[in-house]
């Protein structure tokens, strides 16, 4: 096996140093009766070339293999990734390093993550950001746990029902064993969150997503006012990071905590993961946030450099008193997102965000011309909901098989009240022609 360096002679020499006769002898501390006698029931080894064929067969069976156009966002977005980024992130000095515990030989990772943290705060208008989390859903759950730890007078948080349905599931999963609960805030007819439940409810934090799962931009100023009146933390989340190339950022609305998904920032969709969890906050929550930080410092010669810092909050020091159990996070994807923001910069980020919005407006208009009905009259970024007519499902199947196009996401499984409503997304990767084809075929 080409990964294993040991020649027979190496093994003999090394065994003799250890005073053993065979490789089996190394395991005599394991009671014999528990040792596996038969080989594991796994398929035999494949050579590299057979593996390539096998994997291409699997990958080739995917819709994505044939340049499909999936007009779905809902937490995972198709965006262009510069080839220079793909090259750089593949350099093994980044990819094959461990967590930078030894800063003297890890300045590359450390500076890159420090820059990522800085650019995230610039994007969101917040004071600080962590080095990364798993994804938006888990970051949001952590944000709510922070609120619950900060405001101990209540064990409840309020979460908009227009937060991504999967994120709400994660929150429930995280809160339940800790003995906390979550109240879901219902939906207004215009596709935004109805906060009226909060008139009579005390909560530790209020979480909304904007643009929300239905694509609508929430009124964050209103959330801020309500949160303040409740002395609750104001938490906002997003799944489409590019939206903040265009929209007023959460910091400008006074958000306490922002949880976000960074997949749009140069990370392949990869069937949903790994993505990039973003967690950002005001300065006063610095010691309450879980996960890693990179900070700036100097070396013994006075040269500026970077280290992991504030580790005293973390599990490997604090153990059960840690603010979280997070250890490995999505570091390489944070590095990729940093690269993406460096490539786009101030101007590029704004331009690409605007193009996303323009395409979505075009698609919505084209689909309405084709007879689909608008569902909500709220501004949106690059996702929107339409009500479909009879026969849409068949046309959607035809589009899939004949044009490799997927016409939106059926909302009924997530919102039974929204039967016959589909969530559509357009990004810069879809051409006008793609969208015209889609509209023509659903007519």
């Amino acid at each position, binding site marked *: 096996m080409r990964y*294993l360096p040991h020649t027979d002679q190496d093994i003999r020499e090394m065994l003799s140093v250890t005073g053993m006769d065979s490789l089996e002898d190394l395991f005599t501390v394991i009671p014999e009766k528990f040792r596996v006698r038969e080989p594991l029931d796994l398929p035999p080894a*494949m050579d590299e070339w057979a593996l390539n064929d096998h994997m291409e067969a699997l990958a080739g*069976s995917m819709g*994505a293999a044939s340049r499909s156009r999936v007009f779905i966002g809902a937490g995972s977005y198709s965006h262009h990734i510069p080839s220079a980024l793909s090259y750089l992130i593949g350099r093994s000095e980044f990819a094959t390093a461990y967590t930078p515990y030894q800063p003297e*030989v890890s300045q590359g990772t450390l500076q890159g993550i420090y820059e990522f943290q800085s*650019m995230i705060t610039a994007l969101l208008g917040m004071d600080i950001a962590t080095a990364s989390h798993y994804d938006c859903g888990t970051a949001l759950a952590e944000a709510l746990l922070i609120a619950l730890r900060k405001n101990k007078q209540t064990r409840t948080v309020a979460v908009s029902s227009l937060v991504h349905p999967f994120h709400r599931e994660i929150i429930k999963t995280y809160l339940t064993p800790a003995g906390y609960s979550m109240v879901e805030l219902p939906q207004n007819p215009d596709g935004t969150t109805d906060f009226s439940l909060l008139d009579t409810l005390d909560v530790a934090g209020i979480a909304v997503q904007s643009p929300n799962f239905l694509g609508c931009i929430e009124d964050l100023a209103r959330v801020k006012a309500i949160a303040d009146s409740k002395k609750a933390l104001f938490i906002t989340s997003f799944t489409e990071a590019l939206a903040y190339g*265009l929209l007023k950022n959460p910091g400008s609305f006074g958000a306490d905590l922002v949880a976000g998904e960074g997949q749009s920032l140069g990370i392949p969709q990869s069937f949903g993961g790994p993505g990039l969890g973003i967690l950002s906050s005001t300065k006063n929550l610095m010691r309450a946030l879980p996960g890693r930080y990179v900070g700036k410092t100097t070396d013994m010669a006075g040269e500026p450099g970077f280290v992991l810092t504030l580790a005293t909050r973390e599990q*490997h020091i604090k153990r059960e008193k840690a603010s979280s159990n997070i250890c490995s996070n999505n570091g390489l994807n944070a590095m990729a997102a940093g690269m993406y923001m460096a490539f786009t910069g101030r101007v590029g980020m704004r331009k690409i965000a605007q193009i996303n919005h323009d395409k979505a407006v075009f698609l919505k208009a084209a689909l309405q011309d084709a007879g689909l009905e608008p569902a909500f009259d709220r501004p949106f970024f690059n996702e929107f909901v339409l009500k479909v007519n009879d026969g849409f499902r068949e046309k959607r199947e035809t589009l899939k098989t004949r044009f490799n196009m997927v016409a939106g996401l059926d909302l009924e499984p997530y919102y039974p009240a929204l039967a016959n409503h589909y969530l559509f997304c357009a990004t810069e990767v879809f051409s006008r022609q793609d969208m015209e084809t889609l509209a023509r075929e659903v007519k």
Partner: protein
Amino acid sequence: FKEPLLWEKSKPGRCGISIPLADVEVSPLDPDLVGEAPELPELYELDVVRHYTRLSQWNIGIDSAMYPLGSCTMKYNPKTNDVQAARIGFAAAHPLADPDLSQGALELMHTLEGFLAEIAGMAATTLQPAAGAHGELTGMMIIHAYHAKNGRQRTKILIPDTAHGTNPASAALCGYSPVNITSSELGMLTPKAVADAMDEDTAGIMITNPNTLGLFEEDLKEICDIVHQKGGLVYGDGANMNAVLGIVRPGDLGMDVVHYNLHKTFSTPHGGGGPGSGPISVVEKLVPFLPGPRIVKDDKGFSFKEKGPDSIGRMLTFYGHFGILVRAYAYIRSLGPDGLKRVSQLAVLNANYIKESLKDTLDLAYDRPCMHECVFSDKGQAPHKVTTLDMAKRLMDYGFHPPTIYFPLVVHGALMIEPTETESKETIDGLIHALKAIAEEARTNPDLVRSAPHLPKMQRLDEVTAARKPCLCG
């Protein structure tokens, strides 16, 4: 040469990305909603390429040098695995695309679940957890849900003093209070210590096996039986599975849940801190509690099935770190059952060879046959006022990444070396030689060691000030 920060290189008007053709009309949003363009640095393409190329040159990865970080299993990350994950059919796949467009990914994951269950000797696997610690949390939630379902929640959990810090943190997130179990003078758990602590208010025990001293818990089966007798469950931390693939199965020893670190045992890259992947396998009685969705196969093919009534819920937005799963799957297919067993045999051989070769030079914490790693201390260097940290930093000057230091906590000044199976005898001999030389320097020229490292671009960094006056963004 220092590489400036990105914004120190920024100049207004530059842009390093290709702006796609705008083939539709511009539709301005309501100006009340629109903010200023984000204050990102402005660079052109070569600026960015050079910046990250230079940054990369200040990192050590597995491809640069041996990286014997104990408990981290820094083995070679085969390039073919990255090629598989980058295939357009996988990399560009939308997780909510219709199942008929997703069969390849679903089949791969379904098969991988079976592989991992077989390796663990358990009934079923979920690939959902995003990292090892996330797997632990998932496992503890399953244990919590199991007790809840059985009508009486418990309050405590047993955790040996050799455990990873993530163990108590994960347990605490489920509301359990950790009860510390002291390991014996042999570095192992004793049935007696567990029996004394285990009661019917205790949800179970979290055991790392081989433990973080690199030792196989020889009485594990007996310990599992004790815990089971009191209605508890046994959680296995699989961070060290690289020692026992095809040698012994956690399920056969009586464990109920085990997590994997695919980025350790199954060779996916660590990425400077992730993304990892932390699947868990469980025994039959815990299957209903697994998070949802689960992948099922019927006559229409593979699909996601939503969670059942007893499921703990959902742990991650979409189903696991698919890109990492592809790599682990490719690795298992590349090695097969015989190759995986060989991996563990050679990993253990390498560790024992280091242990034997260095035990006269460095103080060995527990002189017993080890598994995939061995733990020394700085006891022998203490008289010269040379610490484990000093030796670790000095090792950089010899071209090696330092081992894990000051862990496990039960060994004072621990130096925890895990060579993995992909390091050759020559490289290991180089490490042994370097550590012997450093031990000699500690005796004859301790200042040289204390002021290390001398060769990297940076000298020792001031971590104290960094934490006291945090500067987290520029």
